[in-house]
């Protein structure tokens, strides 16, 4: 009797995994850069193309890096929350304008509002690759020492902000 039960048992084990699988997202790519130093860059700024910004200049404060583009529809979804966040002055938001044109980006900000303290441009996506960006929008939380502490993939939702990002920011700021 024993060995005839093996197929049933094996099947039930499989079912458990499949059931867990229903709650997972097979396409989400977790970042291996958590708790590692934010990759360095020195990029031209969007608003004043003569000036540049380097990652090192942001040491000493907790900041968010928000990857966005004017051609990205979900970026529009999260934009109101970014605006609220910037008005509350909780944490500086640095924008990484990803694979975009200056004109289009500036027009978009003029139309929808500008929550960013600074914006740098990454026209061919190289810095994006350094940060493991694979879609827009993405948001990173980086601490005073320049270490990436969190990555949010997709538009920022109220739950993500309240539940994960803002508590983390507050903790890092103390």
């Amino acid at each position: 009797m024993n060995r005839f039960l093996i197929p049933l048992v094996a099947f039930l084990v499989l079912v458990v995994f499949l059931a867990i699988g229903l709650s997972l997202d097979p396409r989400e790519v977790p970042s291996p850069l958590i708790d590692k130093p934010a990759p360095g860059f020195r990029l031209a700024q969007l608003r004043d193309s003569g000036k540049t910004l380097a990652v090192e200049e942001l040491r000493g404060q907790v900041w968010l890096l928000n990857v966005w583009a004017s051609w990205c529809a979900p970026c529009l979804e999260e934009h109101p929350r970014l605006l609220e966040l910037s008005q509350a002055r909780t944490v500086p938001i640095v924008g990484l304008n990803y694979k975009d044109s200056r004109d289009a980006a500036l027009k978009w900000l003029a139309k929808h509002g500008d929550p960013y303290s600074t914006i740098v441009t990454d026209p061919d996506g190289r810095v994006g690759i350094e940060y493991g960006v694979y879609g827009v929008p993405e948001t990173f939380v980086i601490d005073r020492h320049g270490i990436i502490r969190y990555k949010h993939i997709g538009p920022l939702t109220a739950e993500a902000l309240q539940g994960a990002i803002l508590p983390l920011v507050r903790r890092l700021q103390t």
Partner: protein
Amino acid sequence: MTPELGHFSLIVALTIACLQAGLPLAGAARGNVAWMQVARPAAQAQFLLVALAFGCLAWSFVNNDFSVLNVASNSNSSLPWYYRLAATWGSHEGSLLLWVLMLSGWMCAVSLASRHLPLAMVARILGVMALISIGFLLFMLLTSNPFERLLPPAPDGRDLNPLLQDPGMVIHPPMLYMGYVGFSVAFAFSIAALLGGQLDATWARWSRPWTTMAWVFLTVGIALGSWWAYYELGWGGWWFWDPVENASFMPWLTGTALIHSLAVTEKRGGFRAWTVLLAIITFSLSLLGTFLVRSGVLTSVHAFATDPARGIFILVFLVLVIGASLSLFAWRAPRVGLGGQFGLVSRESALLANNVLLLVAAATVMLGTLYPLFLDALNLGKISVGPPYFEAVFVPLMAPAVFLMGIGPLAKWKQATLPELAVRLRWALAVALVTAALLPLTLGKWTPMIAFGLLLALWLTASGVANLWERLTQLSMAGGAAPLSYLKQLPRGYYGMLLAHFGVAVFVTGVTLVRGYETEKDVRMVTGDSVEVGGYRFRLDGLVGVKGPNYDATRGIVGVFKGERRTGTMQPEKRIYHVQQMPMTEAAIDTGFTRDLYVSLGEPLGGGAWVVRVYHKPFVDWIWGGAFLMGLGGILAVSDRRYRLARRAAQAIPAAAGAARA
């Protein structure tokens, strides 16, 4: 009205299915003949109702009824009528309806072709199939109704995905589903046998033709899918180990094991419990495939749009059906007797070894497909398992199986000896070795992989010829006439086996040669430029704009030359479909027995220049040719007179042992 009629048909079909499940199964348990007799007419009624529902949906598609949500989401008025028809099964909901149509079709076929089966068995078989039907009908009616209305109606539809606007779409899903669903018959036979307690050689003989037919459909369905990907995607690849492809391959592997296991059960009464388990496993893999494609658990190019509710429903259904069958198996299988004794070297052992290798291969494919899910569920990280893995593990498993295919048919039932087999096969092996060693040299390049692949294919062919010759000479020695005159006397089942095995040899040859010898060039061409690939010269003679029924295209006119002689013109296209604005590559393929020439347009580079990809693929069509030969072999086997019901008195049996080894 029509959609509502279709919807209503499905509801009535569900009611009939409940009757078809409840009464016959209870009747078989209690010996109530009247209840058991409900099974056949109920199955036929169900088929008519589901066909009616399917017809209603197809009608809505062909007639551009955009008040039906499914039609609006998957069709368009500028789509040619045959693609509007194919779009009926182009979505999750529509393909489910196709599934149920196939299921009721097989049910109806069983109800009509089962006069020789005892009523209790028929009642149980149809009852079990009805239970499956209930599950799918409920699934459709509760979560995936194809007849849902869109009010107000859309002015036009979102169009069928351009990748699906192809003859392949018209035939591949129906064939594939006939295969998937066909294994439900073998499954139902097995459950009926477990329930009724009759599990013997006769049972195997009854279920064998049904199982083989399902296998044929699945083989052809998978081959068509592969061929379609090859000419549609523009890259010349033909198998990607994508989760959905794997989901169809796993039941094929276990299904192949099943048809071989059934052979033993039919002829020697052995492997009974194992055969039953295989039938349950094969159909379970079909159902698992349904789950994987529609639940969102795995990423795949083939996956339908997903919804967690659907995933949960299917999973619950899986647990009920497979859990119940495996429990029934655990309970009843120990009582099933064993067949005759057989030695360690014998045809039975060879077939068992074949089963083991095929099952391990199927388990390996499942391991690779589901491993990312396992790790993610256990929070151990996220990995991808792709072609490099599958190719590394699959070939070492299959090579011994192919080698055994040469030996098995020659081995005697019950007891054979290795030395005797070696003597009978020595010429086949010698021929195979020598040819495999020398052939690559004549073709221009020798690598171990090419030689090994050819060795396997040649071994299969040579051992098949040796087998045939041996039987013919044995008949000749007994009967006195020339060996070849006995060709007509050998049973069709035997030729079916030879042909199917030969199909495998053809397949292996195709894969080996195309991998080993294909060449390609990616070039930048303006009109007038030419390029040499594979001994042919390809010249871009011009580029024209073309207007299709629902797309605009740039078509390249490419002249093909061998030496000075023009052998043909190829016309690859780059299409933009109006509705979805999706660019699509239509490769131009010059199909030949010994090679394919494959030309596709890449991106425009400006100034009239285009990226053009030119491939020379030797023997690539042998891949699908081999698969079709396998299918043909299966059909031959099914048409063996053993299964034909109008058989009269036993024919004279020749004294020689040869013919009796049918």
